[in-house]
């Protein structure tokens, strides 16, 4: 089944204060999103929005993984060969 449609590359997909069509808008929404993003990173949860922002900044117009592809990639790397964890 196709759970996600191919996302388009727009800067507004990302955490970008200058984006005019930022859905939540406002400083509070931005703060909240930054906080969620930080939590995701601390807990090792795939942060798709951050990846989209990264692609938009560095490779605008380039190919983009879908949310599911990205999550699969991240998880595969986390628990792959180097997925060492501590006692």
């Amino acid at each position: 089944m196709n759970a996600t449609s191919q996302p388009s590359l727009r800067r507004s997909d990302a955490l970008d204060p200058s984006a005019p069509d930022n859905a939540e808008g406002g400083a509070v929404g931005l703060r909240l999103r930054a906080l969620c993003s930080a939590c995701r990173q601390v807990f090792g949860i795939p942060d798709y929005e951050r990846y989209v922002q990264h692609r938009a900044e560095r490779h605008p117009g380039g190919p983009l993984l879908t949310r599911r592809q990205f999550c699969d990639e991240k998880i595969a790397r986390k628990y792959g060969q180097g997925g060492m964890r501590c006692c």
Partner: protein
Amino acid sequence: MSKMMSLLVWPGIAVLGAASFAALALGRGESVNAVWLVTAGLTVYLIAYRFYSKFIADRVLRLDDSRPTPALRHNDGLDYVPTNKWVLYGHHFAAIAGAGPLVGPVLAAQMGFLPGTLWILCGVVIAGAVQDFIVLFVSVRRDGKSLGEMIKMELGNVPGTLALVGVLAIMIIILAVLALVVVKALTGSPWGLFTIAATIPIALLMGVYMRVLRPGRVGEASAFGVVLLLLSIVLGQAVAEHPTWGPFFTLTGPQLAWALIGYGAVAASLPVWLMLAPRDYLSTFLKVGTIVALALGIYLVAPTLSMPATTRFIDGTGPVFSGKLFPFLFITIACGAVSGFHALISSGTTPKMIEKESHMRLIGFGGMLTESFVALMALTAACVLDPGIYFAMNAPGAVIGTTAAGAAEVISGWGFTITPELISQTARDIGESSILSRAGGAPTLAVGMAHILSQAVGGKAMQAFWYHFAILFEALFILTAVDAGTRVGRFMIQDMLGHVYKPLANTQSLGANVLGTALCVGLWGYFLYQGVVDPLGGINTLWQLFGVGNQMLAGIALLLCTSVLVKMKRERYVWVTLVPTAWLLITTLTAGVQKIFHPNPSIGFVALARKFSDAAAQGTVLAPAKSIEEMQRVAFNNYLDAAVCAFFVVLVVAMCIYALKICLQALRQASPTAHEIPALGGREGLPA
């Protein structure tokens, strides 16, 4: 302005630390408040971080923010991601903190609270945090390479291969010992087993939700996952009391061992998104949440330490583990003071996410100090318990018997007065049928946490809930570690088999996968089963074997750091890594040799094996074994443990010789010979 602040704040912290230590030192003969212990620790961490880590960062390593880190050089949004310093600190801490710092200090509490506290504090500042910090530094300067690759680069191919074999051996032992902790905690505990079993369907549900139903929505899945987990704890009580389901979830040690072996094999073969990933999120949430709750609980409740500062068991006759304070304290508390396993994390994902070199001070050094704080709290939780209860829970059945009356008599004979009523009452309070001989740290810590947290929230009525919450929290991340560790072990075994027969290294091949998984599970399963049926306790043997292995790995990592410092021509500062290396080598080699050759059968593997095989040859059955076959099995297993221990000793001696050779070579050179990525080098010679 900040200089002024600093002039006021740091002497203040020093005075507070001195006052805390004074309270600990002068409070002999009367009980000391746990707050002093924790505060003494915190001030040591602050001072060590402010001064010692700064010295290492500025003078020894000369961190340079103008050098691009691997994250900046390769920034691919997937592996290499420059990450905010505080976020990465949290991430790194969540990756290094496991069950280790919770188990070792609890076992070491048999010698009193002081020896463990002093080793945790001295060990982390001089050895543990230094190791984590410098390994991270060495890896960042080498494009985020792993420990094995770096040893190959700096010390040569043979040491690199030796280190990899050593890491695999330690992995096997740690998986066995962690699984054993779970078995000891859940034997005859239907409430505990039900809640742990419930995590499997909960994780599966979450896995399906966040991949199939709502891809990537981990937050939503985790929210209902946590709620279901809490419900399963509440429901567990009803299940335990149910006439049919209660006995169904009441398993013996060997049954649980087989269940875990089967679980490990199946879980490691499922796709990661289905069970491992969701369970890992749950366990990380619980881990961080519980650690914060415990810290708040200690300060809020301010319990007194019931355990004396030192007990008579520093003479080596302790029931929890045998052997004198030197060297056995230093291998019993591994994680929390210094842990070789961290060298694998510090050279794993973290170096690929460092944004600036200066951040490594907080992430490497600071992260380890935080883990040490967790170990200190675990020690505190064990020491607020009545010492009689502590020994009832941690001494093996062969020593204290299997009845509350018998145990109370033996333990009171040691000078820790306790009544059978108090033992049974404690078991009833936490909703269990017995607390006797639940060695392994987790149950003791759970009772200690229940003791502290129930005073903060819920009172006595909530004690059983908090106990099972604590068991769930530990078992959850142990099972995650078993699952993830089995996968890593499989990769390593396949990699090694590939050198013998190439197709076996193919991680895509089902046959090779099954073989790798079976070998890995078979190896740790063997040690687990041996530990479960070992009439002398199991934890006794396995934890020390793990301690020797883990500290040896730390020794190897520090030997690498030392060689790198010498090759960088920073030999002036080589004492920073040489002192902890020397101390680790002295303690672990002494402990390793004693574990093999000590004439006392309760310490030396060979002596115990001889005792049992000689008696078996004469046809006499020694307690606690019940038959000649059991005697022969005890003998064989002890020879095996001696061989594993000997392997660790030989390994570290060999690494020592290689490192020495490399250092002497480097000293003769006029210019640095370390294989760093040049400061101004761009991407040349690097993978894209």
